[in-house]
């Protein structure tokens, strides 16, 4: 296994109300005991609404937020016990692509400098000519003309900026790329370009990917497995090819049914999901299943005790004891 996440919990302290003083014990649990493993060459899609903890999980893996409990094991070594130096070495193998392509690029650096930076940090001995060669090569991989290396980020469109971000993530030849909403900010016609580019790079270089998105149709398209999160908990893990037919957690089904199909005929006949209210606030503690307050099949016992994530079928993990397999999903055409 390339990466193993074991029972990871991340908490943030919240500023208390003025009456209780500034350092209150008010805690927000962003991730509550999340576990999964990622194999080489695998793409894991993480999907969930805002506040589900998907971005926090990505940040915890790369070490941008401290982990309170649990272990993150990278190729056999526990990341929480490694020192700064080896952490830096590991960071060479793990890179990230962010949602807002322009905001994630330094406006005062040329894109050549931006793409070269990881190389200079992780391999300080490499000569300037070699770096230039690698920058040019990487730019070609992501579909940018190497002649553009002396331009600044503002001279590029959103889709091109995302290509620059991908080139920067790719130049150190990582083993894992974490993509946090890589296409959410892009136009429809550009989205498909970036999705196809990511898939093609993965095939070519054998990189593992963690793809974070709120868009289930994009996630399903690019991932081998899908992990569905809700308020810091894993609700279901399922191979992508089984998502439509075999997923059965009420939250997963709600997400699937909420994604509109671009065909008015089908969309008219689809049953609209019965979902109650908005997601509850994260800092309101809940003892049982976090989805119970909005769940269409919730029973009294759901709010009593936390449901365990159990393997119901090979590769299919589920945190709901009451749901049944859905009727065959009617596909279009």
């Amino acid at each position, binding site marked *: 296994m390339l990466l193993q996440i074991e029972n990871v919990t991340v908490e943030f302290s919240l500023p208390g109300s003025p009456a209780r003083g500034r350092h209150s014990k008010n805690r927000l649990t962003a991730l509550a005991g999340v576990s999964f493993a990622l194999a080489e060459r695998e793409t894991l899609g993480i999907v969930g*609404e*805002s506040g589900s903890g998907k971005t926090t999980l990505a940040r915890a893996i790369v070490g941008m937020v401290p982990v309170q409990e649990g272990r993150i094991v990278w190729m056999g070594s526990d990341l929480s016990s490694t020192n700064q130096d080896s952490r830096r070495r590991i960071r060479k193998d793990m890179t990230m692509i962010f949602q807002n392509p322009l905001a994630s690029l330094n406006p005062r650096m040329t894109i050549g400098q931006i793409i070269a930076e990881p190389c200079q940090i992780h391999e300080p001995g490499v000569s300037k000519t070699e770096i230039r060669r690698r920058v040019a090569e990487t730019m070609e991989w992501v579909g940018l003309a190497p002649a553009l290396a002396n331009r600044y980020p503002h001279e590029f*469109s*959103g*889709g*091109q900026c995302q290509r620059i971000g991908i080139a920067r993530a790719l130049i150190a030849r990582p083993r894992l790329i974490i993509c946090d909403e890589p296409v959410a900010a892009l*136009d*429809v*016609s*550009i*989205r*498909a*370009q970036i*999705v*196809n580019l990511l898939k093609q790079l993965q095939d070519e270089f054998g990189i593992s990917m963690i793809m974070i998105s*709120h*868009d*289930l*149709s*994009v996630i*399903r*398209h690019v991932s081998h497995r899908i992990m569905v999160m809700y308020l810091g908990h894993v609700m279901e893990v399922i191979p992508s*090819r089984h998502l*439509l037919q075999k997923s059965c957690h009420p939250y997963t089904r*709600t*997400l*699937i*049914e*909420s*994604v*509109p*199909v*671009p*065909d*008015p*005929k*089908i*969309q008219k006949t689809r049953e*609209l*999901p019965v*979902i109650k*209210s*908005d*997601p509850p606030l994260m800092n309101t503690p809940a003892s049982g299943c976090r989805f119970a307050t909005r769940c269409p099949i919730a029973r009294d016992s759901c709010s009593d005790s936390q449901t365990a994530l159990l393997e119901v079928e090979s590769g299919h993990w589920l945190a709901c004891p009451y749901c049944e397999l859905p009727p065959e*999903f*009617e*596909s*279009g*055409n």
Partner: protein
Amino acid sequence: MHSTPRTGTEEPLLSICDLRVTFGTPEGQVVAVDGASLDIHPGEVLAVVGESGSGKSQTALAVTGLLARNGTSEGSILWKGGEILGLPEHQLARLRSEEIAMVFQNPMTCLNPYLRISTQMIEGMTMNRKMTRTQARSACIDMLETVQIADAANRIDRYPHEFSGGMLQRIMIAMSLLRRPRLLIADEPTTALDVTVQMQIVQLLKHIRRKYGTAIMLITHDLGLVASISDRISIMYSGQIMESGLAENVFSNPRHPYTRALLDAIPRIDQNDGELRDIAGEPPDPASRTSGCPFHLRCGYRIASCIENRPDTLGSREHAHACHLSNET
């Protein structure tokens, strides 16, 4: 260039004809909308679909007279048969407050964070209508209940930050409906929201249309959203309308290469699709418009006349498109 000859007998509510919106900038003239025509009948949901820079939002702003100061619009915009392009500001303001309401993408930035929801909602009601604060308040609470804000009587006195994004968008829709507008322009109303909440907003918009008979002009890039709610569609690209017609017609029989390419480029939740077919190149820069068909740079079916001449829009209100290729065959 009248693109959509009408077949219905009823008078359209809004009729935009050959609209051209330009902005004067230090770098030169930017053409945001380049001869767009569309109309909306009472109670109808028209989706205006396009990518960034396609001119869909500027079309809506031209209708409401809210273009930026350096913007000018030409052509004709008829509201219930009367020209509203170039109306003096006080008449446009009356139109906006009584007949055409607008809801924007980010509800958080549209509300004043320092004022209670009640203050912001009641303000519009008491200002130019003979209504007491008590009457206005109870009308506001009723409307909040219509958009399914639970415990509206108490929540109306909360501040915007105490609500989630989906609730704020419902509050914005409630505010826009207070004056019972005939037309609601919703500019990307669900883009900032989660999918489950997006569905709630779609259901709410459908409910409003049924209950009040409000026509809706939905501006979006999300074809799934369009398929869930709209009666008719206009596909915009580079300030021009590429294809328009009844939703079923455009989706099941897309005639313009751009529409087809768009539909091929989106992954679908209900089908196991193979490779996504992307559209090479980028949407054109509004500052440098090309001659001929604006899509010719990215089109796989380009012929010589695409580069030279702008195609005419042919067809009916049920289905029309502007493409040389299909015009010839």
